[in-house]
């Protein structure tokens, strides 16, 4: 029997500006040190290899979410009762409410509308020629779609994105960034608490939460946490994936040509963007018992960071992982997590991403981008601005 003392310890800072700007060298050190490593600064462990992260996410009985997915006690307490911080059976009741509106079957009837909205957004930007791929494209699109689907009143919508950013960053380690983010998470919850159910659009995803509570399928006090799940998780993956797609296609024009000439590659291309630049860098789990991790024993009670972004660049799993290849079709990437807590909105995220890429593929021959401005967030990797110029495809007669 191996003991926890054999788990390698690395004195790494994962949250410095330099590492948040380029975390991949540090992730490689973690992967090479072992299947699980101890990070004394955070009194937590981390898994960085694909096989171990995936197996851990699948084994919710050994790796619990119920003590929170963050690295500080305040955020872990504040997120109690949110779906991301539950285990069955509570998790399954909440998941049913989301899945009844977000499953591929439930969103089928949204397809035409979302494709039309993608065209209406992309066409004038391409005519204009210059735009910010973050603000004008990647943010504008999901914000217009998702906030309507949730059925939020107009009042407060302008603050939703900032709150979502903070709600993620608040789960970092204790320190100034977490201190700055935490009040905004509280503001988000206060805003959601202030909304009366009848202010939400009838038939909307938000209204469905309150309908589920009225019908006794979930508890009344689960409504605000579920609303928080929608407004926190409903935007970031899509925003970051769309802006990252523009950056990667600008820097890999031959890959854009492949997609333009064969749009059936779009689902694979969208997965590849999510693999190579996973928006969610990690969520934590807590071991409920002594667990074997590829020969090392992780003691019961250990908090462990599941490094999705590292797993998606693990050279043990992916050939040449830093190479962007739209033909790779990495359908089993972990950017949406995996298993029971796998992103409930991934069908909608895919529909949005595929629609935007298809609208761009019909109109854009080349992207040129200036220097991106990176958004520093303790859990989410993405851009704040990406000056973009597009060369339209030649008009066909």
């Amino acid at each position, binding site marked *: 029997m191996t003991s926890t003392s054999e788990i390698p310890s690395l004195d790494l800072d994962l949250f410095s500006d330099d590492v948040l700007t380029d975390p991949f060298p540090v992730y490689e050190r973690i992967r090479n040190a072992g299947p699980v490593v101890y990070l004394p600064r955070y009194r937590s462990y981390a898994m960085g290899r694909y096989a171990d992260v995936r197996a851990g996410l*699948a084994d919710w009985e050994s790796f619990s979410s119920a003590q929170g997915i963050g690295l500080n006690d305040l955020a872990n307490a504040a997120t109690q009762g949110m779906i991301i911080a539950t285990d069955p059976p509570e998790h*399954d009741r909440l998941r049913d409410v989301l*899945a009844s509106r977000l*499953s*591929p*079957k439930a969103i*089928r009837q949204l397809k035409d509308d979302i494709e039309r909205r993608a065209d209406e957004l992309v066409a004038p930007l391409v005519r204009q020629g210059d735009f910010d791929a973050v603000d004008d494209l990647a943010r504008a699109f999901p914000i217009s779609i998702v906030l309507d689907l949730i059925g939020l009143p107009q009042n407060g919508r302008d603050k939703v994105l900032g709150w979502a950013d903070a709600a993620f960053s608040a789960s970092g380690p204790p320190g100034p960034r977490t201190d700055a983010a935490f009040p905004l998470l509280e503001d988000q919850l206060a805003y959601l608490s202030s909304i009366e159910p009848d202010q939400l659009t009838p038939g909307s995803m938000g209204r469905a939460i309150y309908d589920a509570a009225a019908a006794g399928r979930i508890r009344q006090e689960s409504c605000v946490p579920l609303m928080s799940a929608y407004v926190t998780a409903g935007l970031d993956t899509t925003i970051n994936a769309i802006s990252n797609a523009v950056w990667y296609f600008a820097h890999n024009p031959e890959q854009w040509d492949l997609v333009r000439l064969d749009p059936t590659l779009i689902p694979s291309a969208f997965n590849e963007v999510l693999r190579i630049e996973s928006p969610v860098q990690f969520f934590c789990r807590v071991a409920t018992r002594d667990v074997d991790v590829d020969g090392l024993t992780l003691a019961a009670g250990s908090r462990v960071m599941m490094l999705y972004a590292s797993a998606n660049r693990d050279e043990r799993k992916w050939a040449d992982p830093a190479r962007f290849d739209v033909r790779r079709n990495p*359908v*089993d990437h972990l950017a*949406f997590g*995996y*298993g*029971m807590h*796998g*992103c*409930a909105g*991934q*069908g909608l995220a895919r529909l949005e991403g595929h629609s935007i890429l298809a609208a761009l593929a019909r109109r854009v021959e080349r992207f040129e981008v200036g220097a991106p401005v990176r958004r520093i967030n303790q859990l989410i990797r993405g851009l704040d601005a990406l000056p973009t110029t597009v060369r339209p495809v030649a008009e066909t007669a």
Partner: protein
Amino acid sequence: MRITVDEARCEGYGFCAEAAPHLLELDDEGDLKVLSEEVAPGDAANAEAAVRVCPVAALRLEP
């Protein structure tokens, strides 16, 4: 070898049906149907791929 679906977890992504069209399909309603729980030796690799690509780990292979 048998392939089974946890219907409470399945949300109908359909990636499994793309990986193993002999064994699984999405019906017109968007619900997953198991065409054959029994996996013939020739379909074992596809069945394993189907299990692997399920985003919510709703599929299981049993010997």
